[in-house]
């Protein structure tokens, strides 16, 4: 093969490969992209419908309940403003604990309970998933605003 043809072959193959990869990537990306939604936004109904998404926050102290001997678990997650009930069946990560950060994958049931199919907890004491840290920081700022008597701090718009 002549160098010119050789180069054309190389370029042609590369372009073809990249085109296929790009087309494929874009298509499959949309199915596998999982959005992170803040707890307050979930409570306000601003979450993707009919598909999985991620939530994250702190596990509310004293909210973890399970029937004796059962793997079914219920707990609440908060971004310090709103709370969301979560249900999960399965083995928990080692660092799952009340008052600590957690990320869950799953979807929202009709009863407003988030059904998690995967629970992730941070892997060491110093580290929290950045999106959870951001979400918490945002609402901790809100705390400085005066709260009226009796009003909850959770105001889903």
């Amino acid at each position: 093969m002549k160098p010119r043809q050789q180069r054309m072959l190389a370029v042609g193959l590369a372009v073809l490969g990249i085109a296929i990869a790009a087309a494929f990537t874009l298509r499959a990306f949309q199915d596998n992209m999982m959005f992170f939604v803040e707890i307050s936004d979930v409570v306000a109904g601003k979450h993707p419908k009919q598909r999985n998404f991620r939530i994250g926050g702190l596990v509310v102290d004293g909210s973890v309940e399970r029937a004796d001997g059962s793997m079914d678990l219920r707990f609440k997650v908060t971004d310090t403003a709103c709370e969301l009930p979560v249900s999960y069946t399965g083995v928990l990560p080692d660092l799952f604990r009340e008052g600590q950060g957690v990320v869950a994958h799953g979807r929202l049931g009709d009863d407003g309970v988030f059904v998690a199919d995967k629970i992730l907890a941070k892997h060491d004491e110093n580290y929290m998933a950045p999106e959870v840290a951001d979400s918490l920081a945002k609402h901790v700022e809100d705390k400085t605003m005066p709260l009226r008597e009796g009003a909850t701090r959770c105001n889903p718009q």
Partner: protein
Amino acid sequence: MIPEIGQFAMILALSLAICQGVLPLLGAHRNDAAMMGIARTAATGQFLFVAVAFGCLTYAFVTDDFSVLYVANHSQLSLPTVYKVSAVWGAHEGSLLMWILILAAWTLAVARFSSGLPEAFAARVIGVLGLLSIGFLLFAILTSNPFDRLVPAAADGADLNPLLQDPGLAIHPPLLYIGYVGFSVAFAFAIAAMLSGDLDRRWAKWTRPWTTLAWLFLTLGIALGSWWAYYELGWGGWWFWDPVENASFMPWLIGTALIHSLAVTERRGLFKSWTLLLAITAFSLSLLGTFLVRSGIIVSVHAFATDPTRGFFILGFLAVVVLGALILYAWRAPSMDSEVGFGLLSRETFLLLNNVLLVVATALVLIGTLAPLVIELLDGSKISIGPPWFEVAFLVPTLPLVLLLGVGMHTAWRTQNAKSWLGVLRIPAIIALVIGFVVPLLFYGRSSLLLVVGCGAAFWIIATSVILPLRSIRREKGSTGITRSHLGMSIAHLGMGLFVLGVTVVSAFSIETDRAMQPGQTLEVGGYEFELRELRDVQGANYSAIEAVVEIRDDGEVVGELRPQKRQYLVQKNWMTEAGIDASWNKDLFVALGDQLGNGAWSVRIQYKPLIRFIWLGALVMALGGLISVSDRRYRLRASKAAEAAPAVAESA
């Protein structure tokens, strides 16, 4: 006192790195032998001082010097001594120092074994490595000094992260870093060639063993990391497409492409500028990996150093290195390509395809890794890309890759006669097809298209890989037999075949069950009965644990006993899962304790993982193949040969 000596040694190493980075390059430019002569001495001195610094930090760890902040944060009195040593590289500052030590060691090796290279070329290579050392030493001294003091000193340390207290993880970072940093040698060779404007086939011959060596360490490092994640993270997965794993995988993919394109450049003098570009890319991806890991920019279990100044420093360094190299490339590379042709049916074509597919695979991994970052920068929404996407996307380029691999190995350079080609490949093709259909059905009782393709591909690679070695064994006396580099290639490809087989069978036939169990209960998984006999408390050196005794029976006959633990480390109070694994060549039985559920019950995860050992065995065999081909005689440079070669260099320059 000792930490100050370490600090001082780091600064001295920096001054020597500056000498090493500036003078030889200048000397090579001006053809000044005295300045070029500094290269080796400076490199040796720099290595010595970095080694002193590293030794001082290790000493501080072993002697529990909690007046050093880094030691106080990552060690503890009752930590076993082995882990006190491995804690040196257990976090950011120390692992950076280790990175620098390894870079200095590679430089020393180049300085030591480059006596056969033309003087100016060796000076340039060592000079470029010196420039890289300057960058990393500055990074360490300015942003991440491991010798910072803690005043007043702590009485006891905060302990090493329990996840890292494990033999696998003690040696995983060194191996990975040797691989990562090793690509800096290929990078330096590429820059040196472009600086001198002279790139011929000997260049590829010099670069090949270094690249293969770096690649084989990276292979071992990645495999060890995967093995560690499998047994230590406790959940039985072997690859998670975690950004940090991807960060080590991308240089591996490009490094693999580089090895293959170097073969073409050496044997045929083709693909020169492409090879240069791959050498630059492989090292740039190593740096990108460091940036991703060290800046904590991406959600990842490994991101232990979350500090923006560090991130910016590495990003700046990355930009300088990549842009500098690419500008030089744009300036020099176009004049380098030779006008030699090759047939459509030739080894060149298949190696070209290999490169295109590996680059596409790298691009896909890169897109998947960076997409969440880019999308967040663009519109603020936080997404993640799950493993399912990577699994499917990665298959698109790699499936043709493994199928073409078997063909390419048996195709001649320049042009291949189609008839004799079919003669050679017919038998392996039949073997692969037959076994691909039979193995899943026979051993695991079911099959599917993907299984036939996967097992077929695996046996296709295995069968085509053993042809060359088998032939050389059968050959009569007096024939030259197989060269080390051919044997190495065949063995590395055989490793690839074993790996593909392992991945196919594990992903198709693994069984995973999570169940609540009480002592005395039995559960059947994968044809084996698992009985939870008892739960008891045990004490370790620096942890206390709850241990389950699980008896495994096959048809009523006891075949093993596992003791998975749930450990609580005394200092950090973290809970850790220690899985119990019954490993054999053809399957792993895996039991991990989950949570206490009340009523004496625990959640238990039981897994059956057929052929999972083949995944790491395959990687090991690949690395062995690399080692064998590095040992090929033709890569050994002798000073006398260099004397012969010197006039030729002067001519072509």
